[in-house]
């Protein structure tokens, strides 16, 4: 019963913490007759990854590890042998674990749910990765603040789409089971998250690329912005690019550089 004992001990914490917790106490608000806050917010990226993503946007100090002219060819991988690549992976030197969400005024009443196949058809190009690292399964999970694993387009009353960004999560079988049971993924687990949108650019990472001096990479003569950073001892690689009018943000967590580049190459074929 140590959990019960610890819960009991929590009762004796300092008053300041308890008062802080009551800053906008819903019970007090309700008692006062003020409507409960019902503003909807939506992460521009999956909750798990928004921490470093947001931090990147706020970074003041970044460093670059340029790999100018590097031609990456990985032995034994047919998909990359034929690819020409000039990779410049912009290394973010420091990450502050800042959590941020962007409220972009989404209303879930406007959301129309689609299947994985339907949503890919909407984008009109291949969304799902073909070269997932070994162990990560092709089964796609929708990653959104509704926490239901679905895929959505937000439509106005006239049917036009005003928000179409979706995130597609790929995990190992064990992590997928864990995710479905618990609603979260351990941050050090290997994972791939593809974010796609037609209606808006995805600028989680490269919003200030010119100011930061970040350099673009070329894969098969097509531009892609690559960044990498370490957060809580876990390496993350991120790619942003536009393909056939669709904005992509692809994040690889705890993958090798080789695995991440292999993952990207089919998008540029």
């Amino acid at each position: 019963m140590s959990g019960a004992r610890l819960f009991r001990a929590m009762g004796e914490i300092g008053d300041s913490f308890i008062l802080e917790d009551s800053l906008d106490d819903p019970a007090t608000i309700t008692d006062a007759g003020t409507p409960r806050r019902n503003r909807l917010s939506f992460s521009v990226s999956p909750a798990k990854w928004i921490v470093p993503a947001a931090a990147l946007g706020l970074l003041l100090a970044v460093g670059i590890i340029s790999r100018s002219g590097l031609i990456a060819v990985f032995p034994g991988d047919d998909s990359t042998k034929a690819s020409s690549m000039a990779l410049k992976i912009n290394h973010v030197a420091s990450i502050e674990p800042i959590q941020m969400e962007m409220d972009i005024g989404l209303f879930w009443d406007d959301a129309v749910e689609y299947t994985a196949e339907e949503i890919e058809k909407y984008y009109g190009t291949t969304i799902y990765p073909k070269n997932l690292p070994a162990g990560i399964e092709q089964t796609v999970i929708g990653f959104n603040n509704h926490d239901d694993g679905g895929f959505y387009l937000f439509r106005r009353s006239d049917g036009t789409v005003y928000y179409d960004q979706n995130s597609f999560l790929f995990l190992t079988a064990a992590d997928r089971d864990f995710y479905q049971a618990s609603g979260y993924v351990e941050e050090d687990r290997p994972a791939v998250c593809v974010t796609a949108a037609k209606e808006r650019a995805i600028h989680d990472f490269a919003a200030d690329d010119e100011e930061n001096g970040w350099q673009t990479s070329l894969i098969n003569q097509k531009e892609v912005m690559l960044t990498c950073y370490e957060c809580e001892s876990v390496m993350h690689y991120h790619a942003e690019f536009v393909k056939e009018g669709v904005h992509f943000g692809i994040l690889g967590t705890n993958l090798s550089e080789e695995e991440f580049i292999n993952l990207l190459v089919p998008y540029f074929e």
Partner: protein
Amino acid sequence: MDDSEIIAQLWARSEDAIAEVGGKYGGYCRTIAFNILGNAEDAEEVVNDLYSRLWWAVPPARPEKLKPYLGRIARNLALDRLEKGKAKKRGEGRMEAIFTELEQCTADKDPYATLAESKAITDALNSFLDKQKIDQRRVFLRRYWRAASIKEIALDFDISPAKVKSILFRMRRQLRKHLESEGIYL
């Protein structure tokens, strides 16, 4: 009426003070009791007990802030009720879930651990909470002080339930390390 006036009325043995407490803090205490007990009737009995406790505790006590003082009493009364099996319904398993979550913060039982360590545990919890960022600390308290559900916390803070779980998971892991570093085994 502010807290100091309520305290003064209690010291003057005015029953109006109890009515004032009920109007100002009754909902807060009832919510905590309900979260722990999962039953409105039980929660109401806790709040009634709370008023009685308050009446006989003040004076001689003179709490500076009534909200944490009352919340703490309500919490302990609800836990006592839970432990004694008086509760008609145990919060749809919520408290079992919370206790199990907190088990993850505790190391193997130390044979020398005793209840006399309570002060050390409280100090360790305070120093742990003091190091946390305010948003995360509030999520942690909402779960482990108020016993709120994951969904309620997500709604209150406009974040996803997955994010709530993720924050709590990380903080429990950190708390375990912190308690161990303080030599505390529960």
